[in-house]
């Protein structure tokens, strides 16, 4: 099974044999890969039944809980890396989650769909909320309540005391080098929490 390119990038940032917490771990593909390829040990938090089932099949330690209550069960500095992959935009208390991430791990990784993509701007100019492969929902029927741009995230990260060390952006599964703020469909950030 090949790992999605953004998850491969996240895995690249995670040290072998380290402890990992994956918030909104989905089907557990990242944790399974980290276990098999890098000898990592960790846990995934996941709320959706079908994902919990899929992660169980991959023999991943999945805990069915929402992020807010789930994070509380972990002690300070419990993990080497905490991952929030394509979930930030659906979180209610965004700032609290980032601070909680900083509490439980020394290193964090966050990825999210870039709302600043030029196609979104174009859609807004045409008078409509954007609907794209990355954010494929109608405005009235979306789990994505906190969409942001790269710059927006960087400002909030700084406010929460997170020190961004790396940023990689993707467009359609390919890495983007120039004009990332406009061309990125997906942004990945790696940061230190101390």
């Amino acid at each position: 099974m090949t790992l999605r390119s953004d998850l491969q990038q996240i895995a690249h940032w995670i040290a072998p044999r380290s402890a990992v917490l994956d918030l909104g771990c989905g089907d557990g593909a990242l944790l399974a890969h980290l276990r098999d390829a890098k000898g990592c040990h960790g846990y995934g938090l996941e709320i959706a039944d079908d994902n919990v089932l899929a992660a169980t099949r991959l023999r991943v330690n999945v805990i069915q809980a929402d992020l807010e209550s789930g994070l509380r069960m972990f002690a300070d500095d419990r993990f080497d890396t905490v991952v929030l992959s394509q979930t930030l935009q659906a979180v209610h208390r965004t700032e609290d989650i980032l601070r909680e991430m900083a509490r439980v791990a020394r290193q964090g990784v966050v990825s999210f769909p870039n709302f600043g993509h030029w196609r979104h701007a174009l859609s807004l100019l045409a008078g409509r909320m954007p609907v794209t492969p990355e954010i494929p929902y109608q405005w009235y029927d979306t789990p994505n309540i906190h969409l942001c741009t790269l710059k927006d995230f960087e400002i909030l990260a700084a406010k929460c005391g997170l020190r961004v060390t790396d940023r990689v952006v993707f467009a359609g599964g390919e890495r983007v080098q120039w004009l990332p703020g406009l061309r990125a469909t997906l942004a990945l950030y790696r940061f230190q929490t101390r």
Partner: protein
Amino acid sequence: MVQPGSVGVVKPQTKHFAQTLRLTSGASIGDYTLMYETYGELNAERSNAVLICHALNASHHVAGAHAEGGNPGWWDNMIGPGKPVDTNRFFVVGVNNLGSCFGSTGPMSPDPATGKPYGARFPVVTVEDWVDAQARLADALGIVQWAAVMGGSLGGMQALSWTLRYPARLRHCVAIACTPKLSAQNIAFNEVARTAIRSDPDFYGGDYYVHGAVPKRGLAVARMIGHITYLSGDDMAEKFGRLLRTQDYAFGYGVEFEVESYLRYQGDKFAEYFDANTYLLITRALDYFDPAKEFGGDLTAALERARARFLIVSFTTDWRFPPARSREIVEALVAHDRDVTYAEIDAPHGHDAFLLEDKRYHRLVAAYFDVIQGEQRTSHAAPAARGAS
């Protein structure tokens, strides 16, 4: 007729133990018999054995049917060929616990000292005592290490206790609708049930056998109380609502509401087959279960010894042992870096949900046992402790 997916006709077996079993209370039982059933085949490596632990009113009859008829096993929807715990792959053992009333030595059995039924003199046993007795059965069956020990409710407590008393003797612990200890409210319900039994004039202080009496009224009330705690409020509202059996209010105290009729039926049925002393004994074992007790109430410290991988499942509408209680176990395991899968099943049936068929629940258990099966193919290594991070 044998249903597809059933293990078919099964025959209970007995194992006699002549070696004294020391009990938590300090008392001991010198000589006892355990009833058990097995399904599937033990493989050559003896690595595919699964122990099923029963809850309050159940028994060794976990799956299949008895030749003489009667109800199918109490977890027949979970265990059988092609079922979540697949007897084509696993050798499954169901055992009736010490002190129960389905054939294993209990209060109804003759006390070797007097030749009369133990009655009130049967020693109080604990979850830990049951686990010790089950370990001896495992020895007798040649099972050094269970692939999994599994149970719901009180059965889950036994599975949890296995990981603490015999950490190297199981690879997986499957604890469903469980709690690390009873709450004051749980104990209170138990005490009301016991009071109902003890205050039945036919109880004779527990020695009703020699009087040829059965405290059926007390037992029925105990069961009615228990039954209320097994169902969710919504489930009861859905099943019965305020439906009347009569045309209209009869302005008396007979059975008028459907829910009254249901509870009385359940109570009376139970009183026909269950033993009152066993009810006292098992509810007491529930009350006493608290592995954190010897660690000053620190469950995390208590679970340090556990080495198994865990599947913990709770049900959202279970108000007897609600999800928060299962999460306490998960939290304690996570603190020690233990492997744990935790699922919270959104099911409407309250505590009883662990016995009922539910796709999400059964798929999850099936997926977990697939993983156990996969591990068997790759290695038979004993579980190793992970270093604390």
